[in-house]
């Protein structure tokens, strides 16, 4: 039985277990139909031209999370941004871990999707927002069909959330390959401000496939900063679907730090449903071995006077492959749009490969849109400059690569996170950069 059949046949059992709410029940049933019809995407589809899921779909994943394995905070501490006070929503094998988490209902809701789906007090928000941003593509639909657990964050009007929120997914799947489908919903009302850090971490040597969907709604003048840390082990694959709807004058930024995993696919979609919106998409990819990272972005400019800024940097070593597929659509009503897209890559091994496809689809005439894309090497004269001043080759290379990705790091607003990212990069490049930032 292949994975698709297994998932489709598990659906009934899943529904019986969790069917609590008629509204979500219909959404799930529709979604499983979409998945059943479309199946997993293949390389024949344009959006999946450079990424094949075949290698990871072969595993015999257990679809339902097992009993919770207890984890001690001290064992998993390195995976948190632990030097600052944060709210935490922690999942172990898809199950909520109250022991590790720190949620709140004090003025804001930082809690669980399962609670939001079942308790009447959240019903209005769920009906207004749940599955309203997600596309009907097969993987998002699959997630919708099995949507049950994840983070639920609702920030009401005029609140500046004073500390960041961490969403961490651990997998311990001690006996078998595990498939996880977390579903996050984040609603930020007018004038509010929130910072969220998300991380997926596999703690075992068993295969893990995570198919995650995150829906983010930034209402008028809201500011949302979302950081994704993807630094997993070689058995973990991640399909991360993120859908962001923005209203007038809101600012949403998503930083994706892709440092590893077996196959990582980021589907990041922004929809600008208002004027004077700013959307920021940034990413750093540093991978090696046989890792594969695919960034698939969409910015849909629907209304006038909006901006979008994309900046993706990639460094590829060993036999790793990278994909960047960025699409900017400017509708004809969206006059005065400024859309920028940049994708810079460095290949440091002959076995590494990069495929990039920055697309523009423009229907309005009074716009400024540009995209730039480069593939190149480290500057030889800069290398020579440093070598002649006694900096060893490895360190010199690392410095250049760090400088290469610095644009993206510089825009991280949480200092502790910035430090953490810098450390991870130094570790990836195998050097001690020797200075703090």
């Amino acid at each position, binding site marked *: 039985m292949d994975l698709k059949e297994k998932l489709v046949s598990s659906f009934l059992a899943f529904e019986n277990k969790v069917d609590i709410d008629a509204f979500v029940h219909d959404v799930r049933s529709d979604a499983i139909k979409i998945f059943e019809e479309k199946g997993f995407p293949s390389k024949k589809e344009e959006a999946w031209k450079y990424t094949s899921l075949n290698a990871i779909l072969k595993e015999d994943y257990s679809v339902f999370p097992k009993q919770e394995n207890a984890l001690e905070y001290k064992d998993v501490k390195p995976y948190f941004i632990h030097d600052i006070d944060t709210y935490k929503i922690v999942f172990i094998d898809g199950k909520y871990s109250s022991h590790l988490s720190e949620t709140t209902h004090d003025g804001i809701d930082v809690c669980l999707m399962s609670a939001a789906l079942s308790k009447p007090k959240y019903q209005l928000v769920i009906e207004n927002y749940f599955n309203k941003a997600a596309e009907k593509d097969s993987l998002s639909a699959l997630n919708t069909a099995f949507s049950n657990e994840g983070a639920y964050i609702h920030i009401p009007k005029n609140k500046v959330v004073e500390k960041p929120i961490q969403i961490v997914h651990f997998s311990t799947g001690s006996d078998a390959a595990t498939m996880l489908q977390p579903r996050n919903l984040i609603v930020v009302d007018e004038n509010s401000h929130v910072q969220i850090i998300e991380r997926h971490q596999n703690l075992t040597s068993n295969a893990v496939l995570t198919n995650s969907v995150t829906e983010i709604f930034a209402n008028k003048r809201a500011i949302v900063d979302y950081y994704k840390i993807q630094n997993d082990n070689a058995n973990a694959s991640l399909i991360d679907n993120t859908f962001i709807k923005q209203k007038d004058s809101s600012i949403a930024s998503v930083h994706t730090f892709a440092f590893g995993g077996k196959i990582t696919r980021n589907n990041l979609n922004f929809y600008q449903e208002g004027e004077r919106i700013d959307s920021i998409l940034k990413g750093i990819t540093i991978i090696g071995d046989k890792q594969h990272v695919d960034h698939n972005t969409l910015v849909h400019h629907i209304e006038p006077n909006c901006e979008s800024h994309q900046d993706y940097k990639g460094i590829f070593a060993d036999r790793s492959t990278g994909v960047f597929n960025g699409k900017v659509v400017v509708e004809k009503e969206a006059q005065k749009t400024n859309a920028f897209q940049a994708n810079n890559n460095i290949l440091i091994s002959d076995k590494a490969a990069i495929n990039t496809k920055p697309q*523009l689809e423009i229907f309005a005439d009074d716009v400024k849109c540009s995209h730039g894309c480069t593939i190149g090497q480290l500057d030889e004269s800069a290398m020579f400059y440093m070598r002649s001043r006694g900096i060893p080759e490895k360190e010199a290379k690392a410095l250049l690569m760090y400088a290469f990705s610095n644009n993206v790091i510089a825009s991280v607003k949480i200092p502790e996170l910035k430090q953490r990212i810098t450390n991870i990069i130094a570790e990836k490049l195998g050097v001690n950069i020797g200075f703090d930032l």
Partner: protein
Amino acid sequence: MSKYTEDDLREELKTKEYEYGFYTDIESETFPNGLNESIVRAISKKKEEPEWMTEWRLEAFRIWESMTEPEWANVHYKKPDFQGISYYSAPNSKPKYDSIDEVDPELLATFEKLGISLDEQKKLAGVAMDVVVDSVSVATTFKKTLAEQGIIFMSISEAIKEHPELVKKYLGTVVPQKDNFYAALNSAVFSDGSFCYIPKGVRCPMELSTYFRINQAGTGQFERTLVIADEGSYVSYLEGCTAPSRDENQLHAAVVELIALDDAEIKYSTVQNWFPGNAEGKGGVYNFVTKRGLCETNAKISWTQVETGSAVTWKYPSCVLKGDNSVGEFYSIAVTNNYQQADTGTKMIHLGKNTKSTIISKGISAGKSQNSYRGLVQVNARAENARNFSQCDSLLMGNECGAHTFPYIEAKNKSAKIEHEATTSKIGEDQIFYCNQRGIDTEKAIALIVNGFSKEVLNKLPMEFAVEAQKLLEISLEGSVG
């Protein structure tokens, strides 16, 4: 100061009918509609081709039958009915002429209307013409001058008879029969086209040129061009097209193969101005062309194109940079107006070491047209020190048109240096204002700006062609280009 605004321009563009829309009434011999093996055999027989050629066509036909029309391009149109087209038509004034006087006077009048009369052309800077009207060459000039240098320039059907060894060796090597749907169709039914061979070390003394015309109602035209530049030779080849105004859609599926052997250089320039359909988007030519060149060591192929016509364009002149140090270039201006749709670009396949490619693409969309750039830059694992620079600029006039960019960049070698940049903009009001202020009216100002926008590409055209290119830009963006 003139009150002429962009809106006026748009209005004018909308109402501008195809100027070269006329129809030459020559009695022609036409095959019944439809395509099957016997039609393919009949075409081959009609052209008195040898057995191997017939077999080659039949093989292509069988491949074509098993293929389906590609749908990935960003164009929408009513699929042509491939069984509703006649695959062969020839002007009946045969046999071929030795001198221009013998050519059907009506035909000559047509060329005169197009501003490309043979007489005029003969006088112009030594351009040899291999004129193709409805699939059969009717006049060839300057053949003797070329022959002295050992240059072979003739119709491909003649070449099949007279130089079978060259045709057999190179035909289908760059664009194989199974390459794509339209290439397979072309391979099966191609009626005529040009063949050119430049011997070792010869620098072709004049620009070689062919005018293609689609003339007979309801006939598709399937040109096949094969240009071979032997070691160390150089040739500049021009191709230009205009077609009469017609209501039903006409299909054009040409194949062009260029082969540049070691140290050779081929410069291939195209001006395409087929009937783009009227202001309502009715009629117009479907242009589905496969053009590809192969570069051996130190060779260079340069494509320059000015695309102003056709209702639907699907065209990607490409370079396979097989040899070390080879160079590929692509310069393009694509203008779309009314309901025209263009999906055009290039492919640069870097296989050899130290290969270089340059892509400059300028898209201008007006009216309700859609203009797409689609390109591929591929650096293979063994292509050390490959270098590519791509630039795609789009200019939009009005908010009913669209400009799209789909660049694909695939690098498998760490020493590759690839740069791609694209911009989209409109004619700035400040630019117009600047010109107005200095006494240049808005119409002229737009002309100036569009001209400047396309200059990088126009400069690459040979002198003889630059004039024609300007003329075509004029027609497409009437009144705005000086």
